[in-house]
């Protein structure tokens, strides 16, 4: 998960002291049993102004379908360099995705939000299905998505 940290550090211009105080965070996404093929999920962070900061994870290996993760695509222009090294398989209906990574303390309680875009072949696109502020207090509190995501939470 080192590359992710580095990516975030660069894109957010977070300073070294901030980086020094990073902590392991586990992101858990449980999908509904929507019955379709595997879902593509993009996990990324925006700042308080709604600007894209960086990507945390991409579930789904085929970049040709990334444009259906429409918010993420709009922010990044579909640039696969944004998810290099942090890309995994798509997530099946009713399955869950767990990602553990080291996140800078500076991301918490500072107006940053975590987004999840979801897309399923032949189903409706669901950009920013999850938008959850990153706060220390909010850790461990499950959030419901609107379509494909039954619950998402982050915990330290």
């Amino acid at each position, binding site marked *: 998960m080192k590359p992710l940290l580095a990516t975030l550090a660069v894109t957010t211009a977070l300073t070294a002291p901030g980086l020094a105080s990073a902590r392991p965070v586990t992101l858990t996404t449980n999908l509904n049993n929507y019955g379709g093929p595997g879902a593509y999920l993009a996990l990324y962070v925006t700042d308080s102004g709604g600007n894209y900061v960086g990507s945390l994870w991409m579930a789904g290996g085929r970049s040709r379908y990334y444009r259906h993760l429409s918010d993420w695509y709009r922010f990044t*222009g579909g640039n696969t360099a944004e998810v290099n090294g942090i890309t995994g398989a798509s997530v099946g209906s009713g399955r869950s995705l767990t990602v553990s990574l080291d996140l800078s303390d500076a991301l918490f309680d500072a107006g940053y939000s975590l987004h999840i875009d979801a897309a399923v072949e*032949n*189903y409706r696109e669901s950009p920013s299905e999850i938008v959850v502020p990153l706060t220390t207090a909010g850790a461990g509190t499950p959030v419901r998505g609107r379509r494909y995501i039954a619950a998402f939470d982050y915990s330290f």
Partner: protein
Amino acid sequence: MTRALHRWPGLLAALLLMTLALSGAALSIFPAAYRVAAPQAASGLTVATLAQRIEAVYPTVGQIRRAPSGEITAYWFDNGVPGAAVIDPTTGQGVANSDPNQIERWLTEFHRSLFLGDNGRIVMAVGAGAMLILAVSGIFLVARRTGGWRRWFSRVRGPMSGRLHVEFARIAVAGLMLSSVTALWMTASTFSLLPDEAMPPNFPSQVSGETGFAMADVPTLASTPVSALRNLTYPYPDDATDVVTIETDTGTGYIDQGTGEMLAWADLSGWARVSETIYMLHTGQGAALLGVILGLMALCVPLMAVTGTIVWLVGRRGRPRIRGNVAAGRAETVVLVGSEGGTTWGFAATLHAELTKTGQAVRVEPMSSFNPARYSHAKRLIVMAATYGDGDAPASAKSFLDRLEQAQPAPGLPLSVLGFGDRSFAHYCAFAEQVQTRAEALGWHQLTDFDTVDRQSPQDFARWGRALGQAMGLDLELTHQPVVPASQDITLVSRRDYGAEVQSPTAILRFALPRRSLWQRLTGRGLGRFAAGDILGVVPEGSTLPRFYSLASGRRDGFVEIAVKKHPGGLCSGQLMALEPGDTVHAFVRRNPGFRPDRSKAPLILIGAGTGIGPLAGFVRGNTRGRPVHLFFGMRHPDSDFLYGEDLTGWKQDGHLTRMVTAVSRSQAPSYVQDALRTEATDVARLIRQGARIMVCGGRGMAEGVSEALADILAPAGLTPASLKAQGRYVEDVY
């Protein structure tokens, strides 16, 4: 080579192709079903109007999609709860559930990847590749089998499995090629091997920041017909920076939600369009009728897999195993076999066994494998070549002559050519002769004189064997037991006896047609299809060697009929003449395609004597189309051995027979059938000028007499029996 290219991918991929074809055929129903079920938009309906109608019913609509089937789906968001429905475009009302069909989804996943992800996709792509190879090689094989591209659709003969295989292929091959090529394209596209990704335009850097422009008033939407729509996405509520996204069949654009202006547009790239067309052709989505047609064609695949496997199994069974076949590089004697049916392989196996007994290292291989460079230790080459159809090379020898032209004749590598054929054909052993002539012209040394084996004669083969032995300095006695086709019991139902008074006991024997199981029909076992003029092989009790009789009936007649004359001391004719209704004999059918009336309307001159009337009577019986038929029939005495006498009178009345001329040998003025021809010379010559076809059946002496008589009759017209034979207008079945 083409055959191997067809056989191995076919056998290996048979199961995979069946799963692909069946799931594909099942999937092909869905686009048609959607096309029928989906409420279609009236032509001229614009996206703007459609959006307006839907907004009236679902104020929180967020997305409108149109599937290639014309089905329109709207998605909305009510108090945080997403909803969706199939929309009737005339009212904007939801009319059906929009959830994707689970069966279709399951079939799609199975069809494209067997639920095995990318590995499964690759497996299925290999299947599509095999399908393409099979289709292309199959097209060439059919051309070869029918004798050329112009005759690609002509009738094929042989066992049912082979015929069905070709017939299914003719129906399906175009569709299967289309499906497999498009499948390969789609796989390449999925694995990003093609630059066909649809690229949306860059998101506009600046928007008006206003909201609330009515969709109904957006110029682009007002000028876009619903039939061109793919997708219309509304901006997020309360997000002034967002835009309206429209996707049509020409590209993607962003529209300002405050002004209704088009902010950015990107056309579909040429590659993307091609990929979309290919997708439509493969799935039938947007081309439902084509999809159903392709699906039906795909249903031929399992049938072809089954018939193809049977063809292979039967062909393998027909070829004997050669025990101890030496590698080409170590063989002293190389035997090259060109045989369509496999009988010649039996002779080659006998030769191989006998030569091996004398300590020779012998290699037997198909003529198509001929490659002198591999025969490093060979001291002699033996070519055993059958002839296929009308003087053609058998399939396993097609490329031989080309290879022979390129090969360098070696002085230490003499060649012996033995032809296998049937003298009743006009082009007896024509291919073997061709090989002999070319080899001589190219300077190949001769090991033995060119020789031929007529109708699998063991005597002919033994004679050639002695000559070969002499040339090799061996005492070679080749005893070949011809392979007897699987025979079956047939039961006599009636007999009509003739000729006892003229010391020529003769009978017309009629047997019941045994029923054939489907398996027998597919594998060409059982009596098979036959027509008058084909041969019935009868295996007498106490012998393994069959005797052959010309058939006087076809399968269509519903019985098996032959005319038999008792030969003094004859084993088989004796047994047949002793049969009573209810008794059975072992028999099989051998086809005799050279001795059939062609399908033209030209007059037919049938000439026969004695039991030779059998097939001729069969032709007359089958002449229901009123073709002019002139019969010359020689007998001993009309009161005793006038075979089919009453039938012929009846057939004449029914118009099956134009004219009958009889010649009677036991009378005050003895006359033979050739004499009758001479008497009718003027008529015969006239008929032949009109394009008549002559068919002769009977003893060899009679046939020679007939040939001489015809030579005299034809001479004034500048024709000869030989020239007619070369045109296929003069055929004999002689015994």
